[in-house]
């Protein structure tokens, strides 16, 4: 039902991302299409979160670039560990309302319809009735559901999730996966960093295997082969402080 359009949503041209000249994502080439449901897997330090930061333009590429042929879309992002000050005395309903920020900004009023949308979002993540609870009273799984409710309200065409199910129990994971499937059916583009390969195989049609270098990108079953996974395990991803300058860029361009 999501026929890929001719122009991709994002194109990576020989993209290298990293910190202080050490690459964390090395020479990434490929397209993200509108409506993709893409999992990024790979070892810790393999550059998965870095790639998300690159997509959000929080870091500038060391080489190559990310091109947005249809223009830069609005994106919503769920960080690996949200740096929330949970001591702040705030109700769940007020926190979820912040998902209206992309439309309301800092100053516009939250209207009646917006408040209704908050309740609907809470219902969708299975947190109906928790609206008056304070944030610090929630368990880890409940907090993750609340964060998903806020994502839901952001209503972005491109959604980036960084390890959304780390430290979350099975029931919560199942509920949130259903939500991701709904987003997918609505035609949104979703990119999620994940570690559970079984989960990826059963829910994510596309996959990017990243261990600094790209070991595979495309249909999940073709990427997550025993051979590729063995390669990923052997990959040395720690930055070598004495690493020489990589001249692959010049070679490929000339």
């Amino acid at each position, binding site marked *: 039902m999501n026929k890929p359009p001719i122009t991709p949503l994002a194109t990576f041209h020989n993209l290298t991302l990293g910190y202080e000249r050490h690459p964390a994502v090395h020479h990434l080439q490929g397209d993200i299409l509108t409506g993709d449901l893409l999992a990024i897997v790979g070892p810790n330090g393999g550059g998965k979160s870095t790639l998300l930061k690159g997509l*959000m333009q929080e870091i500038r590429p060391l080489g190559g670039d990310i091109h947005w042929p249809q223009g830069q879309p609005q994106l919503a*992002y769920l*960080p690996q560990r*949200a*740096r*929330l*000050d949970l001591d*702040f*005395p*705030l*109700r769940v309903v*007020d*926190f979820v309302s*912040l998902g209206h*920020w*992309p439309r309301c*900004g*800092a*100053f516009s009023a939250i209207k009646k319809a917006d408040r209704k949308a908050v309740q609907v979002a809470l219902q969708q993540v299975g947190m109906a009735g928790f609206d008056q609870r*304070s944030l610090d009273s929630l368990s880890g799984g409940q907090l993750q559901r609340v964060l998903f409710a806020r994502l839901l309200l952001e209503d972005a065409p491109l959604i980036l999730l960084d390890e959304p199910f780390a430290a979350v129990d099975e029931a919560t994971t199942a509920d949130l996966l259903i939500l991701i499937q709904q987003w997918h059916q609505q035609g949104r583009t979703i990119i999620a960093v994940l570690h559970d390969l079984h989960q990826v195989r059963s829910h994510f049609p596309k996959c990017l295997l990243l261990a600094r270098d790209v070991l595979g990108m495309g249909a999940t079953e073709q990427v997550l082969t025993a051979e590729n996974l063995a390669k990923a395990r052997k990959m040395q991803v720690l930055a070598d402080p004495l690493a020489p300058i990589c001249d692959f860029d010049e070679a490929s361009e000339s």
Partner: protein
Amino acid sequence: MLEMIYQALFAPFMDFGFMRRALVGCIALSLSATPVGVFLMLRRMSLTGDAIAHAILPGAALGYMVAGLSLGAMTLGGLIAGWVVALLSGGLARITVLKEDANLAVFYLLSLALGVLLVSTQSRNIDLLHLLFGSVLALDNEALVLLAGITTVTLLLLAVFLRPLVLECLDPDFLRRHSNIGTTTHLVFLALVVLNLVAGFQALGTLMAVGIMILPATAARFWARQLDQLLLVALGIALLGCWLGLLMSWHLDLPTGPAIILMLGSLHIFSLFVGRDGLLKRWLHSGKHLKS
């Protein structure tokens, strides 16, 4: 009996104009400084208020030297000194290795030393105690209008910037992803802190002005668990403390600023023990738990 209660709690305000003025001034100050204090506390900047309060002194002293005991000059001087220190601390924290608190410590100390120097060398007759401890019992019309004006500006700006103010503290990454209003918000907030400290030093003195900001907020934390409740309870505590402090100062013939702050402090200690999240409840319930 009723007569005694009336004499103790209400008569001073009924019989004496300056006591009524003091009360009005305190109400204005409570309305304005308390919410600022609540946000200072929630942003873990409780001591920032104290440091900026010290920084105001040289400005006020300079104002006094230039124009005598003029409300306008001293207020303006205090505002400028407070602003300069707040901006230097916030600005340098963004471009050097030192963090905001370290910068603030440096500049408030310099500012305070300069202030004490100015006050002590320039004139012998300046009443240092007035600057340090305020004169809430001598608030004239001009001062009351200034206090009311500052209250109005503060409440308006807080209402406008409420959302980014909350978000900058609660989830700064989310704010940064969606907007670049964070820095503006921080600066507006610092400006409000300075403004309210300057308002407070007319009444309570430079050193006591922080008290009416922070103490109601900290006391209210033991009672309220939500932001809106916190703001209301803090306001109630501030008003109660001002009223009782004024009475204590009147009946026992004590300096007013410290009397008000001590009353607020007593309310804090009371809340610490008796409040909903206070120590007493913890001791009473220690070792017991509910079934579900």
